[in-house]
């Protein structure tokens, strides 16, 4: 297999990992703030804080991994995306900083500071939007190459229906993923009240997620025909994704096996996400940058792959330990042990 494909597969997997763990995190922050506003925090806050506190740093690493990896495997992305993303990414960094500091500050200092909790909740909705702009830009049509480097046409970006569809999808998906996960978590904790509330959220956000996802495929037909066609060639992957979606909604609706429902949800997003990723091949930034002109030299690619395998050998057992202690430990989840 060529280095480009290995690089893309590794990076896309990490991005997928980030999408899932960050969605749980972003959505939880929003539900937490929402429950404060509606006076239901006694039901939700404990469940949410219990899961999130030990893992927020790990969530952040997935993102760092992705952007360090992409610059490593495809140094030219630093030139193209680095030059145009100064504003959207800087805003994302600031929002991430608010979130990152929240756990530490909230847990140890300003416990129950309402203003901070609201800001934290709001970032859960703005962040997916500001990060997903990068996906829109990669579809092409917003970047112009000039003598002083690539330039981003903000006006075209903000007035494009594609931008807003992707923003809506990312927000809906975040709330949906998060609600399904937390339903499962609350159910394991034996917290009937929280399960009830979260199950309702999951059902509410299922429909907008699937509707906007379909809408984007439609938008792409007019925005980037080439990409639309390669998407259509992968229709079967989207079909599998849809079956997973129906299965997980069915389970949640019937209050059955929330754990399996969450696994189905991962399957749903994995198929859709990888199908989308494969269909973009070979473009990193349509039509200026492909994986072939972007890829790093052979010796670095080999070194990165070796480092990656060695790193995984270290990480996977550690991640397993973390999950066993905080996710699958019945006593911890239900709050019986610290």
């Amino acid at each position, binding site marked *: 297999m060529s280095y480009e494909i290995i690089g893309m597969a590794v990076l896309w997997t990490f991005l997928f990992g980030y999408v899932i763990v960050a969605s749980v995190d972003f959505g939880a922050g929003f539900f937490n703030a929402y429950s404060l506003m509606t006076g239901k925090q006694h039901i939700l806050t404990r469940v949410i804080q219990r899961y999130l506190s030990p893992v927020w740093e790990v969530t952040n690493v997935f993102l760092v991994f992705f952007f360090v990896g992409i610059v490593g495997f495809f*140094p030219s992305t630093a030139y193209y995306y680095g030059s145009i993303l100064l504003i959207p990414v*800087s805003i994302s960094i600031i929002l991430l900083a608010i979130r990152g*500091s929240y756990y530490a500050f909230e847990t140890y200092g300003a416990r129950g500071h309402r203003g901070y909790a609201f800001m934290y909740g709001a970032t859960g909705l703005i962040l997916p939007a500001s990060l997903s702009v990068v996906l829109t830009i990669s579809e092409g049509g917003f970047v112009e190459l000039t003598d002083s480097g690539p330039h981003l046409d903000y006006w075209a970006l903000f007035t494009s229906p594609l931008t807003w569809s992707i923003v809506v999808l990312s927000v809906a998906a975040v709330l949906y993923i998060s609600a399904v996960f937390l339903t499962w978590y609350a159910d394991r904790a034996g917290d009937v009240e929280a399960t009830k509330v979260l199950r309702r959220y999951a059902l509410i956000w299922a429909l907008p997620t699937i509707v906007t996802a379909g809408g984007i495929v439609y938008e792409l037909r007019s925005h980037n025909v080439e990409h639309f066609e390669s998407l259509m060639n992968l229709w079967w992957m989207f079909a599998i994704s849809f079956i997973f979606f129906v299965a997980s909604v069915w389970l949640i609706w019937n209050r059955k096996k929330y754990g399996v429902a969450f696994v189905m949800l991962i399957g749903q997003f994995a198929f859709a996400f990888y199908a989308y990723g494969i269909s973009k091949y070979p473009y990193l930034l349509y039509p200026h940058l492909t994986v072939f002109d972007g890829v790093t*030299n052979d010796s670095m690619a080999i070194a*990165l792959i070796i480092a990656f395998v060695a790193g995984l050998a270290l990480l996977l057992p550690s991640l397993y330990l973390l999950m066993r202690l905080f996710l699958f430990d019945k006593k911890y989840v239900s709050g019986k042990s610290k």
Partner: protein
Amino acid sequence: MLFEDPVFGSRMLTLLTLTFHVIFATLGVGIPLMIMIAQWVGIKKNDLHYIMMARRWARGFVVLVAVGVVTGTAIGLQLALLWPNFMELAGHVIALPLFMEVFAFFFEAIFLGIYLYTWDRFENQRKHLLLLVPVAVGAAMSAFFITTVNGFMNAPAGFDIVNGQMTGVNPIEAMFNAATPTKVSHVVATAFMTSAFVLAAVAAYRLIRGSDHVYHKKALHLTMKIGLVFAVAIALIGDFAGKYLAEYQPEKLAAAEWHFETEREAPLVLYGLLDEERDVRYGLEIPYALSILAHNHPSAEVIGLNEFPEDEQPPLFIHYFFDVMITIGMWMIGLSLVYWFAIRRGWAFAQANWFRWLIVLGGPLSMLAIQSGWWMTEFGRQPWIMRGVMTVQEAATQSDYVGLMFVLFAGLYFILGVGVVVVLTKMFRGNPVEKELAEQGGDRS
């Protein structure tokens, strides 16, 4: 608008982010080791005070880590946002250490989470100690990897440029460039020293403020001893760093020392002011010292700044940063040595408030030395971003919005800085050690 020139703006924003990040990064590398040592001493001596010390430091450490993580993420992304041309070129050579740094950080993050949230789950304190090993190792490893990247920028290696194209890339050679050994050891050792002196400052402050608890005395004693060991180590490493500069970056050493003419028996200049004819006034000259520092021989020849074209000379103000760093380093060796000696001999002044105030001052001073050292090394390689290969002018973004981003980030760091101070104060003022010890089943020792 602030900073019309995106190159200057990019430099200033990078300076701002790194200066803020370095505070938390330094403590983030050093404090896990202190926690580990305290936990270990606690187990060995079967002394609850040290275990408590590990816990209390760890709680404060989380707040610092949080800010370290978010500012670290910021600088990681800013590298590509502000220096796209640099990252495109250097990415081919230094992606490996950047990538491995993330692994080290990942490793640390996982075990820190486990350590913090399993406090009361393990009966056996030894198991808990084991969790700290990957935290401390991960922290030091990230410092190692990221410093090799900075070393590469100072002493590029591991590639050839043929007709403007990069060929023959060797990632390992790039990582272990000429600057790496001295830089890494210096960075890690100063992080340990600074963390020790910052924690000593906290203990000394509590003692001054009336808590006469033996806990604080133990904390002060432990951290001052650790600080002394690393301060002495740094003086030795600093000497190697000087020799490295003389060999590989003579223009930086020459600018830091205001050494203009190439000559034998070169004196070392401390302090002083430079007038317009580049004459040093009020300086303190130590004969032969620069020759000894550079080549271990009093009559060795040291290359002067005049050998370099004017547009490749670093700014001369780095001399002041150099002085600040050296002076504080020497002062801290002296202070901790006097403390150690006085405690052994039972001299009363070591318990006096004025002496404890000096220790309190030592914490922020050590941090200032770290900053001065970084400013010296970074300004000292101007105008290059990769010495001899690419200038900062060629590397920076052309975006018009850098000035605006500078304002935004300055606001962010201000809020984070205030947040850290407020939270840490609340955390420890509301829960003094006496209270916590009582909750933990009485004061046994």
